[in-house]
């Protein structure tokens, strides 16, 4: 009985002795390349406004923990989507480094293409319209194109501007 108690105490002592080892930080592990790659899709949540894999603050506990979380997810066999969902659950949508390709965020992705397409159509229409204009009609059309002022008035204004200004 006494021997059993001694064994128990010894085990307790060993456990207590090893406790600091558990609490003390383990040597820093470098995140894997894959974690770095996935980390490029998130923002570091320490407030530095940097992409997670580019956060360069030594001792930034947030980026270290986030990259570790990515590595742990990869070790569990989680897909990139699962890891992303876990981060969104934890930090909200502000964790994205770029808007996701779904839902309202599609607006962000599609807008530049829409601007370009609309602008292109507009430019082509303008070019087409200008090309159809005969040269001789231009000056008179410019002035009398169903506007409130006549060609003479415009010419007078032009002459006045030339008279009143010097380069």
């Amino acid at each position, binding site marked *: 009985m006494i021997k059993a108690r001694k064994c128990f105490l010894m085990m307790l002592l060993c456990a207590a002795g090893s406790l600091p080892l558990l609490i003390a930080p383990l040597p*820093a592990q470098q995140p894997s390349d894959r974690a770095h790659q996935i980390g490029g*899709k998130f923002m570091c949540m320490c407030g530095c406004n*940097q992409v997670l894999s580019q956060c360069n603050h030594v001792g930034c506990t947030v980026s270290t923990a986030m990259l570790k979380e990515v590595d742990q997810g990869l070790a569990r066999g989680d897909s990139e989507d699962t890891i992303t969902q876990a981060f969104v659950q934890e930090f909200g*949508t502000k*964790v994205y480094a770029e808007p996701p390709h779904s839902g309202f965020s599609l607006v*962000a992705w599609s807008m530049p293409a829409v*601007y370009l397409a609309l602008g292109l159509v507009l430019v082509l229409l303008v070019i087409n319209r200008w090309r159809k204009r005969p040269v001789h009609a231009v000056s008179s059309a*410019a002035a009398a194109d169903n506007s409130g002022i006549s060609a003479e008035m415009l010419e007078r*204004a032009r002459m006045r501007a030339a008279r009143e200004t*010097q380069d």
Partner: protein
Amino acid sequence: MDVFGSFALLLSFVCAVYAFVGGIAAIRTRHPLLVKSTRQAGLATCGLIFLATFSLEYLFFSDNFSVAYVVAHSNHSLSPFYKVAALWSGQEGSLLFWSFLLAVYVFSALIAYRNKNGELMPYVGVVLAGVQIFFLTLNNFVASPFKALGVPGVNGAMNLVARGDGNGLNPLLQYPEMVIHPPNLYSGYTGFTIPFAFALGALLARYPGEKWIHLTRKWTMIAWGFQTAGILLGAHWAYAVLGWGGYWAWDPVENASLLPWLTGTAFLHSVMMQEKRGMMKVWNVWLVFSTFLLCILGTFLTRSGVVSSVHAFASSNIGSWFVGFIVVILLVCLAAYFKNRDYLKSENQLDSIVSRESSFLFNNLILLVSCVAVLSGTLFPVFSEWFTGDRISVGTPFFNKVNIPIGLLLLFLTGVGPLLAWRKTSLDSLKRNFGWPLLMGLVAGATAFPLGVRGFYSLICLILCIFVASTITMEFYRGAKVIRARSGASFLASAVDLTMRNTRRYGGYIVHMGMVLIFIGIAGTAFNRDVQKEMQIGSTMQIGPYSLLLQNIDNKQEKNYTAERMVIEVTRDNKPVMMLYPERRIFPANQASGTMVAIYSTLKQDLYVVYAGQSPDTQAPVIHVYLNPLVKCIWFGGVIVVLGTLVALLPNRRAVLVLSAVQEPTRVKSLAGTLTPSPTLREGHD
């Protein structure tokens, strides 16, 4: 001195109000004395703003720690160099600095046109005074830099106090570039006020669109040049100080500076359509209006806290003032446009889609798409929060994906546009102008591919850069060859002569060449590498061809900070290259720390070494090393862009100056031949 400065500011506000109200009355009554007195009031406004600004600087230099702004941004040991920069290091001071730079422009414009354009200038003066009133309202009543330091007393009243020392300047700003970057950027922002005032003034005065364009071209180029220099200096500051290995992070503050630059660039191109062909008058007016509005919008974004930025004055409540100002300006512009749009009728006519005119239209389209894409990306977090309740971040990856293709399209047009003829370009001309450059671009691409340049965008960028550089070089070559054949001068002298004969055109080419270099530098980002390692004295690390040995760690004591410095020997193939000293600085005044990066820069690549701090686990220094190829091209390209802008600002040297050297009467006949401008060299072929 704070009372003097405060009074000068208040008086300048009164003068600006008089210049505005009196200006309107002068326009209506056309009374010469009223016109003169409002102009004098405009000049007095500027003079008083100068006095107020110098007063604040005096308070910094005299260490007057009874003024809250001086306490917040300076201390005894701050070097005089940075006491100058302390002026714009906080919100109140930077708004005063804005007013100061605006006053410099306004003063210059009022003096430059004091005996000219008598009918137009009152309109311009009213617009300028209106803008000044807004900023002086902020300076006087919202964010005064002359507020005395006070503590609440027992009875609730403020008791004035003076501190023994100030908090010191933000460490990130204690870097030489921070003394020149904000003035450049702000000069760009404020400079666009002049073309805006002339455009709006000309519209209000019912001038058809040509005149204000001629009057403001140089002002626009000056503002654009400053804006370009400011953006690049900011990028260099971010690269050398922030220590993350890059120079552009698409931060809202950076984006805010880019937006007016993009529309300003579009304007500088489309304005040529108006000058040469009388086209796009409405478009140009709105481009100038938009550029000015984007300058104000950018300021709103960075000061309101609407978007989060590492540079922003997020806690400020000044945003609503800017929103109000933007709304007022927009309403005035719309009203002026709808009332007088008939005077902007354009003579739009196009002979062919393959022409200079079309290329300018596409150039404007691409620049505007880029501007709107950057703006919508910057504001998307706000929109997403409005519509979905969740704030979705938009970071670097998004902006890169969207803007790289746009940038490449723009680069392509940079090569194509200038070589297309006005009205119509023939197939023969296309072959002659683009055959060789295209071939050279493709050969460069074919050579680079086996050498490891495999990224799609990098490869396309390289091909386009060589293509554009070749087209520009060939343009200089062809022109210089003609002059050389006639004058017998050296090729270089002929090229210089060519440039000076049409500074605007060839200055523009120089700017384009600078942009090519900047694109080459940006393309290098695809090949960046980095390594981070905990190091002990004597340990080494390797990156690319370089080996880094940590020789020692020492401490440096300066007047305003202490620094822990790494002494690193860089070797290549066992041969010493140089010593690098990355350091971390601690500023006791505000207990802040800052990084000082060490860079070994060559034309090929930058070895960029950061002492990132001590490992929390082992207390060993952590060294982060980046190998960034071609970064120098960006800075070099920036210098060339600014030089090109300066060249474009010079007046043309007339061809007759060259001819005057030839005096023999027997050669009159040959001289007559030279007097006829060749198609290549004809004046005004921009």
